């Protein structure tokens, strides 16, 4: 009897392990929206791309509830790919703050001259640390934040797709 109990319980635990591992296969490997609602510390200053003016980063975001931040660079090929979608956002009157990541200002300005400027403001991030404050991991990345509560609402890792644009639009519209 005792042996049978041992056997059945071993069998049961094996089946449980099997089910868990099976579920493990389907678990999404998308870690991008791991930490939503994490806080941003706005106590640093940034430099604008176009006139070298130094401002408090806070000033860029405390006017609206939701803001869109896009991290880009002139040397980044997928950034070129998503550019038309960014221009779409501009056409929809959605303000996008650009963070120019590890870039040469001249190249950045040329990039915008050539392809158009979808941003309401652009700040530079020479060493990449400002982007990390926004929870980014690379370029291109688009982050929707709540400037009033200073928290990260949603991250889009990689170039923005049409679906992403629609999602951003509905997020912004919900709040206004």
């Amino acid at each position: 009897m005792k042996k049978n109990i041992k056997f059945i319980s071993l069998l049961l635990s094996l089946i449980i392990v099997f089910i868990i591992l099976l579920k493990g296969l389907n678990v999404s490997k998308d870690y991008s929206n791991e930490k939503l609602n994490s806080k941003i510390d706005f106590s640093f200053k940034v430099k604008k791309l176009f006139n070298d003016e130094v401002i408090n980063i806070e000033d860029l975001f405390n006017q609206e509830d939701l803001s869109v931040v896009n991290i880009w660079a002139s040397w980044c090929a997928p950034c070129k790919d998503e550019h038309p979608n960014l221009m779409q956002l501009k056409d929809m009157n959605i303000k996008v703050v650009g963070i120019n990541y590890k870039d040469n200002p001249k190249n950045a300005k040329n990039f915008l001259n050539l392809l158009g400027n979808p941003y309401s403001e652009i700040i530079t991030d020479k060493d990449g640390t400002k982007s990390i404050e926004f929870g980014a991991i690379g370029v291109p990345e688009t982050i929707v934040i709540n400037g009033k509560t200073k928290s990260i609402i949603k991250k889009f890792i990689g170039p923005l797709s049409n679906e992403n644009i629609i999602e951003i639009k509905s997020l912004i519209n919900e709040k206004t």
Partner: protein
Amino acid sequence: MKKPKFINLILIFVLIFKTSYANELNSQVDQITKNLRCLICQGQSVYDSQSDFAISMKTVVKNKLDEGKEEKEIYEYLKNKYGEWIVYEPELNQNTFLLWLIPLILFIFGGLLITRKVSIK
């Protein structure tokens, strides 16, 4: 004579195992970044990686240290932004206590099994 010695050994090591790896490395930035996962690499630490993300992270860690932040605070700050999995050493909390406990329980269990298989006579 042998059995009591067993137990003493076990107790001693269970008590001090957590403090065993206080390695003094070249600098604190290195120490911290060796414990951070490079999120865009496959299985490399921030210390080992030369990717943009890793290089920025090293700067962030250095800046935070210069601001006077402690190692633990820096981990908290980064875990807040990127999730628990950016830190390689799983801290001891309600999610992970089993992680640390299970091997130890198995060790004790194994020891008990052996005492049953072994006779003093």
